[in-house]
């Protein structure tokens, strides 16, 4: 399987990438690690006329302690998130989640920004960032803007990013080295989650993100509300599938996904 023909341009900087997008319009797509886009192009489910390769924009590959939050460049690879020292102290949950994305080969190329911009409800990092109340910074022709994670994921593979915008930074609150749990259920090694749960305890509340329980990554709002009202972990976990609309596929029926969400939330809450 070989992608349909396209023109290839290499962006030298974030600014250059935005200029290239503006020049080529709707026909262009950004290429980061290629771990989601290239498989789609090989199946010809995506046929961009122009690929703007941002893979070498090293100014967007960093993890920085920014005082009240940690700033992560969109081009930071899963491998670099998984092994980062600042994150191990300040936001251990992201390291743990990144370490279970695909396999070593995928993590050597795939980026956190690509994972978010792709907007796949089955992906691990989007649900984690939703649970963390992260903020995303996008750069477009008119400058930069901040988008809250809660506003970002709008539908299946649909995000708040405009076609001429580049996701450049991810800002995560400092939640510490521990106080989190990541429960990923899949039947095969290296696979996407059939259902996954990310739970993070902050000083104020417990946040729960759900993977693959609808057309976007979700927060288990009924669970969070129950916990805030003093419910036990077991009682709160029973609400894990409330308000979700998981789909059925060859791995799981709707009922099975709902069951998994309740079991995995219970395990996650038990672990933090």
């Amino acid at each position, binding site marked *: 399987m*070989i992608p349909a023909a*396209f023109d290839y341009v290499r962006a030298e900087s974030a600014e250059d990438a935005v200029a290239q997008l503006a020049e080529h319009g709707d026909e262009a797509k950004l290429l980061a690690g*290629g771990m989601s886009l290239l498989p789609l192009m*090989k199946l010809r489910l995506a046929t961009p006329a122009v690929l703007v390769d941002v*893979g070498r924009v090293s100014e967007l590959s960093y993890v920085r302690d920014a005082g009240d939050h940690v700033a992560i460049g969109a081009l930071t690879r899963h491998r670099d998130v998984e092994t980062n020292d600042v994150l191990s102290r300040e936001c251990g949950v992201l390291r743990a989640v990144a370490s279970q994305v695909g*396999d070593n080969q*995928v993590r*050597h190329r795939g980026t956190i920004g690509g994972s978010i911009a792709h907007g796949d409800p089955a992906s691990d990092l989007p649900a984690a960032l939703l649970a963390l109340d992260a903020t995303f910074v996008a750069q477009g022709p008119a400058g930069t803007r901040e988008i809250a994670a809660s506003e970002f994921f709008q539908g299946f593979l649909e995000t708040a990013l405009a076609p001429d915008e580049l996701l450049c930074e991810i800002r995560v609150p400092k939640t510490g080295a521990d106080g989190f749990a990541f429960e990923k259920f899949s039947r095969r090694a290296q696979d996407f989650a059939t259902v996954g749960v990310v739970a993070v305890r902050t000083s104020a509340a417990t946040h729960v993100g759900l993977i693959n329980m609808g057309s976007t990554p979700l927060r288990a709002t009924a669970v969070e509300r129950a916990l805030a009202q003093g419910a036990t972990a077991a009682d709160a976990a029973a609400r894990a599938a409330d308000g979700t609309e998981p789909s059925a596929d060859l791995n799981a029926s709707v009922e099975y996904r709902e069951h998994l969400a309740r079991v995995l939330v219970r395990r996650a809450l038990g672990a933090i």
Partner: protein
Amino acid sequence: MKVGVTVNGTAQEHDVEPRTLLVHYLREDCGLTGTKVGCDTSSCGACTVLVDGESVKSCTMLAVQADGATATTIEGLANGEAMHPVQQAFHEHHGLQCGYCTAGMVMAAVSLLEETPDPSERDVRIGIEGNLCRCTGYHNIVESVLAAAEQMRTQPR
């Protein structure tokens, strides 16, 4: 488009279409057919090679993305007649059956041991989870990688 890659220590330059996958570049333009295509869908790892020292699935990377990089394929591991410790360990511990997954398994293992020189059995099993063996010879593959790790720690090349 002109693409220059240092493959197994030799500078290569070829004119390729941007859509050329790295695996096809290595096999067809560079003539290095040791790297195999298995699934062609990023799942099996048979096409694993090293780019700048790290394992990647070469069926899911464009040759143009490797422009300016160094690549190592199975052909580049041995030092003359002397096999790489991972190759030697697969040989001694019978880490292959039909051999189709082997080039990719060995490359994934080389990258894993670079990152994790003293792995537990579990580290090895997780470290090669991106590589499937249709002959299901995982037991001896894991033995081979553990033996290679030991060899490389005690007697670095």
